[in-house]
């Protein structure tokens, strides 16, 4: 069946700089060994400089495999370990930990991915796959020799949070964190809390009264001993990084400074005002937002209502779908029909988005109540006249004239005007529509790429109240992780000022750092750059830029990378 697994020990070899590297080649069952000749690869690894021990494992990540690494570190006095197996994404932490358990600094470990990069992509090219695996291992071994021990970076956390924006998202996040016992600064630029919720009527799908919800949350926020609510307050400066943000706010011309450890952006969004579209005048032709206002103030008395969807959305200038306007229209059409079954409601739409069971039920209910849906073509938009709306019926293939005494335009939510300024202050990213952009759609939907800053609600993208609340609770939960830890431990693969004397404090690197992880400080030796390791992500832009070569990246130094390049080309 399968060939015997190879083990080699070289003894009594005089080694340069006493580097003793062990190489573990993983078969991954047949995942690697089925397509590559692992025995041959292991044999090749023996010939590489500084390699004193080579072992082929059936599964290096199995308990047996891990024990073999640990034993070899002790028995063979290995001071570098190279595992040639799968992806570091999944297995590097495990192997590092195993090294640490055996007393070897985990950063003296190097991983080579011969599964994803060789056996998987070269399944039908055994020879070339083998050669590539050898190249990669040669490079890994070469780099390993230059690796340096690193210690994890620790930093204290200021257990306080700032939440920017006191709409429903901000208030929910604030309460969640405050109830967990953290001090919260809730900063709101307008005089009142509540944001868009202040102007809404009933909230779908359960017909919750918006005012009731707002009053309840407002009371809770105002009376909470852990929340400091700062209204009519704008943020003028934010300095620092996760654990240590220095915030300067100003209210009515007076400045105040405070420190926080984490920040949640809950700045919400604005309703797009459709000036110049469909004869919008705010009286006969209004927005859904204004319709809710009429409901609230009980001034609604129209008999024939025509709603037009996607006004100023999914167009050339605003390509995105605001997502919540279909549901708003459906909800409001039901409200009209329930008040007055005789009233007519036409919804002119391009596509209806009513996701989730409850919204779908509401959609069906509106149809049962007699709301008429007419699909229109973007190329032939409806035409609003004094007492009627003309629309070309897509399916009938002719123009209809609908009588109206009120036209309601469904307009999208658009990004707040402060987003750009705030994104610069916090060094977080915006998407092409100026909404805040999360770190990863699936893996980190409520985090930013910058540690310690989180987002929720409309600041991210148009959301229903319910979604905003879920996101707010999620963001509070994410933010509470570093808060709860008190002490932060960060990967030491970060930028280091390797040559302090060379640094001239020019600030070139500081300007390019996407994370604000570098600062120029005055020292006894003059102006020098200082790396803030907890804020640094190790991208390496600074090291690739520095013109005096003073900066380097731990575990990815210029010397290590160039050694890999040379090792590759020496094959």
């Amino acid at each position: 069946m399968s060939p015997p697994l190879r083990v080699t020990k070289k003894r009594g070899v005089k080694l340069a700089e006493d580097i003793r590297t062990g190489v573990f080649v993983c078969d991954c069952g047949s995942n690697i060994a089925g397509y590559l000749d692992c025995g041959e690869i292991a044999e090749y690894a023996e010939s590489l400089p500084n390699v004193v021990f080579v072992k082929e494992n059936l599964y290096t990540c199995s308990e047996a495999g891990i024990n073999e690494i640990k034993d070899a570190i002790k028995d063979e006095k290995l001071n570098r370990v190279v595992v040639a197996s799968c992806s570091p994404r999944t297995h590097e932490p495990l192997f590092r930990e195993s090294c640490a358990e055996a007393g070897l600094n985990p950063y003296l470990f190097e991983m080579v991915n011969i599964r994803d990069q060789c056996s998987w992509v070269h399944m039908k090219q055994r020879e070339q796959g083998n050669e590539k695996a050898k190249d990669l291992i040669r490079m890994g071994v070469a780099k390993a020799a230059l690796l340096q021990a690193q210690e994890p970076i620790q930093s204290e956390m200021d257990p306080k949070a700032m939440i920017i924006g006191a709409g429903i998202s901000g208030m929910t996040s604030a309460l969640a964190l405050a109830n967990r016992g953290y001090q919260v600064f809730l900063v709101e630029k307008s005089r009142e809390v509540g944001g868009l919720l202040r102007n809404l009527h009933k909230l779908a799908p359960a017909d919750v009264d918006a005012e009731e919800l707002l009053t309840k949350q407002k009371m809770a926020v105002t009376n909470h001993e852990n929340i400091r609510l700062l209204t009519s307050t704008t943020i003028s400066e934010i300095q620092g990084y996760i654990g240590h943000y220095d915030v300067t706010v100003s209210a009515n011309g007076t400045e105040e400074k405070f420190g926080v450890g984490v920040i949640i952006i809950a700045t919400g969004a604005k309703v797009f005002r459709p000036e110049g579209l469909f004869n919008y005048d705010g009286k006969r032709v209004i927005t859904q937002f204004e319709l809710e206002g009429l409901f609230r103030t009980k001034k609604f008395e129209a008999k024939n209502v025509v709603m037009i969807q996607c006004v100023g959305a999914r167009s050339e200038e605003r390509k995105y779908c605001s997502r919540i306007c279909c549901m708003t229209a459906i909800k409001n059409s039901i409200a009209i029909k329930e008040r007055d079954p005789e009233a007519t409601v036409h919804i002119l739409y391009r596509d209806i988005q009513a996701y989730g069971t409850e919204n779908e039920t509401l959609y069906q209910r509106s149809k049962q109540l007699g709301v008429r849906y007419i699909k229109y073509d973007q190329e032939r938009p409806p035409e609003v006249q004094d007492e009627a709306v003309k629309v070309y019926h897509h399916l009938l293939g002719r123009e209809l004239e609908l009588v109206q005494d009120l036209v309601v335009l469904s307009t999208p939510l658009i990004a707040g005007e402060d987003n750009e300024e705030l994104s610069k202050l916090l060094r977080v990213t915006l998407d092409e529509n100026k909404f805040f952009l999360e770190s990863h759609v699936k893996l980190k939907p409520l985090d930013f790429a910058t540690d310690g800053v989180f987002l929720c609600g409309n600041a991210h993208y148009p959301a229903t109240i319910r979604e905003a609340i879920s996101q707010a609770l999620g963001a509070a939960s994410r933010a509470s992780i570093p808060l709860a830890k008190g002490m932060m431990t960060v990967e030491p693969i970060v930028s280091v000022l390797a040559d302090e004397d060379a640094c001239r404090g020019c600030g070139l690197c500081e300007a390019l750092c996407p994370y604000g992880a570098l600062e120029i400080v005055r020292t006894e030796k003059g102006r020098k750059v200082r790396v803030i390791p907890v804020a640094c992500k190790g991208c390496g832009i600074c090291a690739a830029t520095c013109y005096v070569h003073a900066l380097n990246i731990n575990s990815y130094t210029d010397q290590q990378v160039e050694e890999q390049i040379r090792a590759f080309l020496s094959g």
Partner: protein
Amino acid sequence: MCTGRVNPTMIAEAFINGADGVMVVGCHFGDCHYITGNVEGKIKVGLAARVLDFVGLHPTRVSFDQCSSAEGERFVNLVTDFDDGVRQVGPLGSGDRLPLPELKEKLLMAKTALGSQKLRWVVGKFSEFVTAGNKYGEVFTEHEMWRTLDTIVMDEVATHEILRELERNAAAVKDLAARLKLPPPHVLRYVLALQRRGLVRLEQVEGTSPRYKAVELEVDAA
């Protein structure tokens, strides 16, 4: 490793060690895991490509491309096309403007130039100048930046070549000009600039022509 980590000297190092081509593939703009790493990466690779091209390397040998981890087919096509291109040019030294021994000399010098202050300073300011602009609010187009860089590349490469020659032997401007195939007035300007920076000194005057020599810099014992 982020493309933002790619030090332009690394690319030169690969060719010095005999690589036939260097391909740097990063994320699409807006999708960078490190926010702006790919933007910087493209600029740095662009600089390396220009300097190496200037010293005689075939431009096909360096490329910067973008591809997401979900675009397997695109990646295969990019690599295949690049590989085809390099194969057409041939092994290092064959399709280039100089044959191998001379080319290698020039590549070493290109690496020095890519590690030197002036080029790195301008490249470090590149993205700032094309977005926010300089101290006076003047925003430059990428084209303008590259054109500026091209002239700096010319100056830097010539300066480093002259310095290299003068480190070996003292020489007069006209000899240097003949050896480096550069107009004598240009060489004189570079030599005088080097002299002002204290890197070159007047060794002796031979007939009517002064001969210059590189100043041996004291190496720190540390």
